[in-house]
């Protein structure tokens, strides 16, 4: 869909400072509101003072966070170059610029102090009121900021986000004050209101079936927003209603509200990124999920866990079926110098013998090259006869060593086999790999899911040949959602400043009734000083057939 599944939109560039500011600024804003209202309502002076301090601390951290997120932090003052009502960011920058001095004024000239001069108290009152008014904006405008964008998940919640962020800020601000010792009934009441709001809003998200809302429910962003909402919604709600007088319960409720408020902001930014990956041109204009007419397939489970399990099962079965296959191979290697100029090219033709050896849990590939750059290989061994004798492993090692002379470029490589990434999906190995759903594409009634994977640093498929230390791989797996069939793998490792990327594409084979690797693309980018080069290889495999081996397999 769209242009080769290239996302139509650009993802947000904001780093951790922005969600951190959403939290800090929001809590500071509510702090100023609580201080002002508390002062007018004649609340205890200590809570007013602590709320004001909270606002001051937040007001001082917020600009630092925002400035450090800029691409050009030295130009932060340009934020106050113009005032634009059309730009929520401009409105926000000005709000913060007013809020900070106002809340400082209220702190310096305490409006409740009995022995201060009339002028000082007036200044304090003005500061307190201005801080409260701008504080309300600070606590809610961040929802407007991200809602008024093109990012589908944010845009779809433009109405809901200001309430969400406001309630989240209120809950967290109450939490901070309670942890400072103000476990008053007023704080509990405010905590309950915030928790009720957040619980209802999460419920609303859970029943929201618009495709744009998917990143709030699945993938890592879904996990984060859900965790944030549970921590700041139902958890404090129950604790506050059931044990309002219990200090431990209040403390847990307070901590939950604060943690949830932080996690939720990070979750929403992550959801924005995930949303872009899903937003192909065609998706944007469809308010309802894409429905495919005709045969209704059973609905596949699209959770990452279910997809990985189904792919692992597919690979286990696949390895049983994929035995002793022979294919014609055409292999082109191209070497490029650092300026992108093609400096060497090599064409190889021959046969590929490919099998899975269940005893060893290994894929074995033997390349029997007959032609190099159009000329026959002079000392070609009779690979067929060697294989017929049955020593598959021995033959593979021996031929691989001989074939190494055909490799162009200065890079040693011995892991470049098309089916290697399938080993990642071995039941035991899967445990040590992080999977994340990258995108879901439904076309012609079939749903294909692309999973992004990253191996852990402890366990890896590939090890350094000399030091034997693990080299963790990352990449993408495209699988058929219904069957778990692996249709494309992209496998990437970085070692010694060399980036290696192996892409394998599978297609169905009519004769064998099996999906087989048809295209294998290798790219090695050697970034070492003085050795800069890029090697690109493309292998095409055709005419698959079964190879009959009569002998037994020696170890």
């Amino acid at each position, binding site marked *: 869909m769209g242009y080769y599944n290239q*996302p*139509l939109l*650009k993802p947000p560039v904001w780093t951790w400072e922005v969600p951190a500011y959403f939290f800090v600024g929001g809590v500071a804003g509510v702090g100023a509101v609580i201080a002002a209202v*508390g002062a007018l309502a004649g609340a205890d002076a200590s809570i007013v003072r602590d709320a004001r301090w909270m606002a001051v601390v937040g007001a001082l951290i917020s600009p630092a966070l925002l400035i450090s997120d*800029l691409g050009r932090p030295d130009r932060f003052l*340009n934020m106050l170059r113009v005032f634009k009502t059309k730009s*929520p960011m401009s409105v926000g920058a000005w709000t913060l610029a007013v809020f900070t001095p106002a809340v400082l004024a209220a702190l310096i000239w305490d409006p409740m102090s009995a022995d201060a001069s009339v002028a000082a108290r007036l200044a304090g009152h003005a500061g307190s009121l201005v801080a409260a008014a701008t504080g309300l904006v600070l606590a809610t405008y961040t929802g407007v900021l991200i809602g*008024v*964008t093109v990012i589908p998940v944010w845009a779809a919640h433009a109405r809901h986000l200001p309430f969400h962020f406001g309630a989240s800020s209120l809950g967290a601000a109450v939490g901070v004050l309670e942890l400072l010792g103000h476990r008053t009934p007023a704080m509990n009441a405010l905590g309950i209101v915030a928790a009720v709001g957040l619980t209802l809003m999460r419920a609303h998200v859970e029943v929201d079936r618009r495709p744009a809302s998917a990143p709030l429910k699945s993938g890592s962003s879904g996990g984060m927003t859900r965790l944030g909402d549970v921590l700041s919604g139902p958890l404090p709600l129950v604790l506050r209603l059931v044990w309002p007088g219990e200090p431990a319960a209040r403390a847990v409720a307070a901590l939950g509200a604060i943690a949830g408020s932080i996690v939720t902001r990070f979750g929403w930014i992550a959801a924005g990124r995930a949303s872009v990956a899903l937003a192909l041109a065609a998706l*944007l204009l469809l308010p309802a999920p894409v429905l495919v007419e005709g045969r209704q397939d059973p609905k596949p489970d699209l959770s990452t866990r279910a997809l990985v399990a189904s792919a692992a099962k597919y690979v286990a079965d696949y390895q049983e079926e994929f035995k002793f296959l022979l294919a014609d191979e055409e292999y082109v290697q191209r070497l490029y110098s650092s300026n992108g100029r093609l400096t060497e090219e090599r064409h190889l033709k021959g046969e590929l013998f490919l099998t899975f050896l269940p005893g060893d849990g290994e894929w074995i590939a033997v390349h029997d090259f007959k032609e190099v750059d159009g000329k026959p290989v002079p000392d070609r061994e009779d690979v067929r006869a060697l294989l017929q004798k049955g020593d598959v492993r021995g033959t593979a090692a021996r031929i691989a060593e001989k074939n190494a002379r055909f490799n162009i470029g200065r890079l040693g490589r011995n892991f470049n086999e098309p089916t290697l990434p399938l080993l990642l999906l071995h039941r035991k190995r899967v445990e040590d790999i992080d999977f994340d759903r990258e995108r879901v594409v439904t076309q012609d009634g079939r749903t294909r899911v692309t999973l992004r994977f990253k191996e852990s640093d402890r366990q890896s498929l590939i090890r350094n040949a000399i030091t034997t230390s693990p080299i963790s791989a990352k990449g993408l797996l495209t699988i058929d959602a219904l069957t778990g069939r692996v249709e494309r793998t992209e496998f990437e490792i970085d070692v010694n400043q060399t980036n290696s990327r192996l892409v394998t594409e599978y297609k169905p084979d009519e004769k064998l009734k099996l999906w087989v690797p048809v295209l294998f693309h290798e790219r090695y980018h050697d970034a070492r000083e003085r050795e800069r080069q890029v090697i690109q290889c493309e292998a095409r495999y055709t005419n698959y057939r079964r190879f009959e081996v009569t002998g037994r397999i020696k170890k």
Partner: protein
Amino acid sequence: MATGFFTDSTVCIGCKACEVACKEWNGIPHDGFVWRGMSYDNTACLGHSTWRHVKFVEHERDGAPAWDFSSDVCKHCEHAGCLDACPTGSIVRTEFGGVYIQPDVCNGCGYCVVACPFGVVERRPDDGRAFKCTFCYDRQKAGLQPACATACPTESIQFGDLDDLRARAQTRLAMLRARGVTDAVVYDPQHTSVGGTHAIFLVRGRPDDYNLPSNPERPAVRLVEAWRSAAAASLAMLVVTTLAFWLT
């Protein structure tokens, strides 16, 4: 005078001379030596260092494979999301109707990136500022055509008065239809919230295949409803805080 681009993809030969001319004239850095493994087009998309991008669209036409090329560019929207969003006033509308980022003002806040319905603007990581097509503002000021249109060897990229170009696009469309090219369409989103663009396209097949969205949306259409929510949320917070202190 409002100027524009009319990109007629039916005569584009995919030579990428526009990409090269754009980079040369504007001194844009390279965009990496990346093989995308998706088609012969390794540029992939517009971005901070790609202001012209020739798409290589492989699709099916009448049961046979068809290969179409189309040079993409910033659309220079009539109601531009990036221009609305820019908090520094760095992004302005020029006297030619184009949308221009003043590089000496941009502070790299990144808000325009998420405000562009076409995914055009991007922040350059090593520079920190946002970049996109300038519509060759400097060349236009000097009475020249943009570099891409000058370099195009087949006049696939045509530059001129926007109204003239719109008429030319319709004439060309009628001509193609008369010749039996029934799948040709003009992409000119005048009836969407971006209010029309200064870059219009003639493509064969579905514009979606070229990542030209059928309904590009200006984010500011949600400005009122979002602020209304913020106001309601603020009021609610003020009321509950007051009640909480008063009643307890």
